[in-house]
């Protein structure tokens, strides 16, 4: 299976990822190459095989529902690109 330039632009949009228009061709080629590699998986019968999400088949650990973190807003916001009055600033969303 191979992708088209249109597919790549659509995927880039889903990922909110800017890609240079002159690079679309090379991404199309590379991703198609990767899909060709993956086609090998299709040749294997995996009926009845349980998908493996964790190498040791662990389940998520539970913990008591208590606060363990202290408020460090100023500390964390010190490295933010743009903040004001404790808020992260982004371009206006609602006109």
């Amino acid at each position, binding site marked *: 299976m191979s992708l088209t330039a249109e597919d790549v632009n659509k995927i880039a949009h*889903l990922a909110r990822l800017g890609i240079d228009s002159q690079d679309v061709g090379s991404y199309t080629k590379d991703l198609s190459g990767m899909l060709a*590699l993956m086609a090998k998986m299709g040749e294997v019968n995996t009926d009845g095989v349980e*998908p*493996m999400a964790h190498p040791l088949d*662990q389940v998520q650990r539970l913990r008591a529902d208590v606060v363990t973190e202290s408020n460090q807003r100023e500390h*964390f916001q010190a490295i933010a690109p743009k903040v004001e009055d404790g808020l992260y600033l*982004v*371009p206006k969303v609602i006109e």
Partner: protein
Amino acid sequence: MHSKSIRQLAQGLRAKEFSSVELTQHFLQRIKQHQNLNAYITVTEELALAQAQAADQRLAAGDTDLLLGLPIAQKDLFCTLGVRTSCGSKMLDNFIAPYNATVVEKLNQAGAVMLGKVNMDEFAMGSSNETSFYGAVKNPWDSNAVAGGSSGGSAAAVAARIAVCATGTDTGGSIRQPAALCGITGLKPTYGRVSRYGMIAYASSLDQGGPMAQSADDAAILLQAMAGFDSKDSTSMDHPVPDYSATLDAPLTGLKIGLPKEFFGEGLSDDVAQVLQVAIDEYRKLGAEVIDISMPNLKLAIPAYYVIAPAECSANLSRFDGVRFGYRCENPADLTDLYTRSRGEAFGKEVKRRILMGTYALSAGYYDAYYIKAQKIRRLISDDFKTALAQIDVIMGPVTPTTAFGIGEKMADPIAMYLADIYTIAINLAGVPAMSIPAGFSDGKPVGLQIIGNYFQEAKLLNIAHRYQQVTDWHTLIPKNFE
């Protein structure tokens, strides 16, 4: 001083042959002298000297920790409080981490001195260190060759003796492959053995931190300090940590070594195969029994990995949005433009390729065909390891198909670069531990031997590596110009 082992240095500090400050100054001076290697992204000279002074005080008070006062390097993927943590990316070029990774915290407690943050492929995505925003690391054995990746800076720093030892991380071979190409000892522990807290995530079900050092003896000491359960990492394993140094000398008589025929077939260069045969013969002399085995699903590792790792990467890297930390584009027109342009301008090509691949594999209509299929294949591969390791003690094989390739040689063909990870990737999918140890040279460049064990058998791997290093001297050789 720089060619001594951890134990020798620890002894030298206590015999007052040199202080931690003097040792640290010696390494800082060597880092400057060998700047052209490009191993370090950030050198933390002031912090290192302050830590060395504190270590000297602890030494005077009789503290016995082996790593106390020893200058080490941290891969620039571990968050270090107050110190830039770039992950090799323009995205985090301005990121001063607001907290320490658990590994960093543990090494600080042990009294290790951090010389700086070492170079790596961008977000650990690469096999040559060439995808770093800060440029490729040169291989100390051949300045025209790659140091490997993604922990290329760690491997080069240890090989060039500009750090006593270093931390690394391994998602598909990123500790073992650069260790092999630079002629050092590297260990990827069992998934969940070393805390991932504060390790910038690439593929969370595969990522694992581990030690990179001159020898198995040194690696055992470093792993001892890094390993252990951490409640801050939801996939950390609550499993006792043995004394890794205690069993290093155990005899290898009767050890069963399996050689998968899939590891020694087409694709493996003749010179690497020859070096490995000699190394395996050395194990026969040490009393091991060598058995041919087959692991038929190994060939599916690369396709499965290049679905699972990019899928997890596309989710993990969505946090880099130009809002809370990291790079933000100039004058965004609206919120979508802010996200799209910040990410577009700050991520390099390999990272973008994997985000695109992962986004596609997880998108509606393709999820079952790619992601679920890959997870099923992952189980088949993992079962191959379980079956093999039920009959034998360890698996041995190559780490890489060839020795270090030239800088620039494979950058134009990403698929060819992926295929070179054929011997390391399956181990991460299964989650078992594996090591790379120096086993000889071909054409002046190091060759690594891979030793793969069962879950939580790190002590066994270190024992097997150590016994070999007692009868060979590959791990003691220092590249020319770095003596």
